[in-house]
């Protein structure tokens, strides 16, 4: 949110304070007008937030406390059930596995995306022929609709005729085909791998931007003192990149927690519930079982977890501004 600082500089005020009442009234009127203008400037943003963030959040919370089914859409009747939907959500035997899967999916995705993203960003920091072109090609996974990329990955990861298994077998790395999406013990890993692929552009873009901000003189000075290569990275790049890194990680967590389409496209939560996450549970309760109340409860739990990270992000941001 942009903070609007339109109050006049304090220096302007001091001589006027001793002037006559008429003048003071005029000033007050002017001040009030200014207030009005401020409010008018704020109104669209406030309205936008209220309509597109406030309303859905409130509606979702209310829905999670009601017995909200297909019938509700026609009759408008949604009996109040208190915390029963949360009890159903937390009491289901899929709740603990879904929590664990969500955590592993998020951690795995973030770790992979960040490490590969940072490596690529550092690599593209040097200018070489076609570097600009290659860097823009990296954005491709981001530009593809997720449903398209997940359908493509599904055929790549196919156990019998997928190209990945054929490739690995030709390299002699595996003897038996890997059951990427068909074994409960491998499926989550496969889904994480695809999500890493999807998330790399986001990480590269932000980290590359951060790297550009580091003054070249630091490296020149460091090189004089013998800090090159890894040493330069640890003592110059990393400390200077820290603020960007924290932003990338926190936003990454929030974005990854709610990933749904990739999982639906690849496994639909299967095989044997091995890739059930909170987001998938929320979707399936709402749109497969038509238990919109329970689905809302799942999504509120998810929002709560995201909120924790969002608060961490805001505090970090504020500290950065204070500094």
């Amino acid at each position: 949110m942009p903070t609007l600082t339109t109050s006049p500089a304090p220096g302007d005020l001091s001589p006027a304070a001793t002037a006559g009442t008429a003048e003071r009234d005029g000033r007050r009127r002017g001040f009030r007008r200014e207030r009005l203008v401020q409010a008018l400037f704020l109104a669209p943003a406030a309205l936008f937030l209220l309509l597109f963030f406030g309303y859905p959040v409130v509606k979702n919370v209310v829905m999670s406390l009601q017995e909200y089914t297909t019938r509700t859409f026609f009759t408008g009747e949604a009996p109040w059930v208190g915390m029963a939907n949360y009890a159903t959500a937390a009491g289901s035997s899929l709740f603990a596995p879904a929590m664990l899967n969500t955590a592993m999916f998020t951690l795995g995705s973030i770790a992979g995306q960040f490490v590969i993203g940072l490596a690529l960003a550092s690599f593209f920091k040097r200018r070489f022929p076609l570097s600009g072109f290659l860097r823009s090609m990296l954005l491709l996974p981001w530009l593809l609709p997720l449903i398209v990329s997940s359908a493509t990955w599904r055929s790549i990861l196919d156990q019998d005729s997928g190209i990945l298994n054929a490739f690995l077998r030709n390299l002699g790395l595996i003897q038996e085909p890997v059951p990427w999406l068909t074994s409960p013990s491998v499926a989550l890993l496969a889904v994480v791998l695809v999500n890493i692929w999807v998330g790399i552009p986001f990480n590269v873009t932000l980290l590359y931007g951060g790297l550009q901000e580091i003054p070249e003189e630091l490296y020149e000075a460091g090189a004089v003192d013998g800090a090159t290569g890894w040493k330069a990275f640890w003592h110059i790049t990393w400390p200077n990149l820290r603020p960007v890194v924290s932003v990338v990680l926190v936003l990454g967590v929030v974005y990854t927690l709610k990933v749904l389409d990739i999982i639906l496209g690849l496994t639909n939560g299967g095989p044997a519930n091995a890739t059930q996450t909170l987001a998938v549970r929320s979707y399936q309760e709402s749109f497969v079982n038509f238990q919109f109340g329970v689905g809302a409860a799942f999504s509120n739990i998810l929002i709560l977890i995201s909120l924790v990270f969002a608060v961490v992000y805001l505090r970090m941001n504020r500290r950065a501004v204070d500094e």
Partner: protein
Amino acid sequence: MKKSSLTCLMAMAAIAPLALTACGGGGSQAAASEKVDSLTVLDYYNNEPDKTHIQGALDKCAAQLGVTLKRETVPGKDLIQKVLQRSSSRTLPDVLMLDNPDVQEIAATGGLAPLDDFGVDTSGFAQGMLDAATYEGKVYGLAPTANTLGLFYNKEMLAAAGIQPPKTWDELKAAASKLTTGDRYGLAFSAIATYEGSWQFLPFMWTNGGEETDLKSPKVAEALGFVDGLVASGSASKSVVNWSQADVRDQFAAGKAAMMINGPWQIPSLAKTPNVKWEAVQVPVNAQGQTPVAPLGGEVWTVPQTGNKAKQAKSAELVACISSDENQLALAKERFTVPTKTALAGEYVKAVPEMAAFTEQVANAQSRTGKLGKEWPKTATVMYTAIQLALTDQASPQEAFTKAEAK
């Protein structure tokens, strides 16, 4: 971005929805006595060639009734969401198509009108289809045609191996095993973690006497054991747990499976690979003498409660017209589906002989929601979970349903 331009952008974004809502809304209800000259229609036949075939039937009926139609088609998986949105905004179409297992769910909301309110004759239709469209003793919709599942086989592959099309589970098992060579599997089917997986298991379960109301019975476990055995022995790919029915068809069309469990709606796509010569038989039975019982698929046309009685009456006429004998036969021939009026079966098979097995199968087919009604989604979820647990060796076929139900 500069502050001022950002503020400007937000202002525009905030105002946009207001302008949109101002444009929406309105739309007055016509009086009951008013002459009806147009009806709105919503269905999920959004792909060719079905879209055109259905349009043909609708146009014929519209001309007969002297109305014009405004038709909207949406993708299959978006239909229910669309219906729910429309019912909360009181903008349901005059004529609504629903997949048959969803009819009771929507009828239970009070959003549909029973057809006998308008004096529509529902006699002569296959019982399974009427069961699907019946909620609390009243019929809410009619389906012109139905589909079901059968066993497709590659004629050349079976002939080369000297195998007759299997009729029993033992024969199916032996044939699948013998037909599995190199990178070709004997049989392909779908056991995916969606309702498709449950639907494909039903012919085995029902034929063996299992019931969806008692999933922990030994008969159901036996059926699951048979399917599990096909995968465990390598006669079917382990990938079946991630194959939709369209994937199954692709495997069959690519010659990577010698037989498949699938439905007649795949026939138009199979025509694109004319080198794959196929025929279809009913799904094999466990023991000789059992009747193959498969699930009934197909779409039902209904009349939503729009509050406009005159239009509803006209819509009911349209629903009846789409399911007239003439239209049933026309649609069945064009779309490779089976007429739902049992009396038409003989005439139909004479015209489309490759549909003989499916027509016979439809006569004995059951609807998924006949016994369970609104409970079907929950049970279907337990079913596909149990199938996946067994096929991925997380549970034995005997304990799979108990484990899946614990959810």
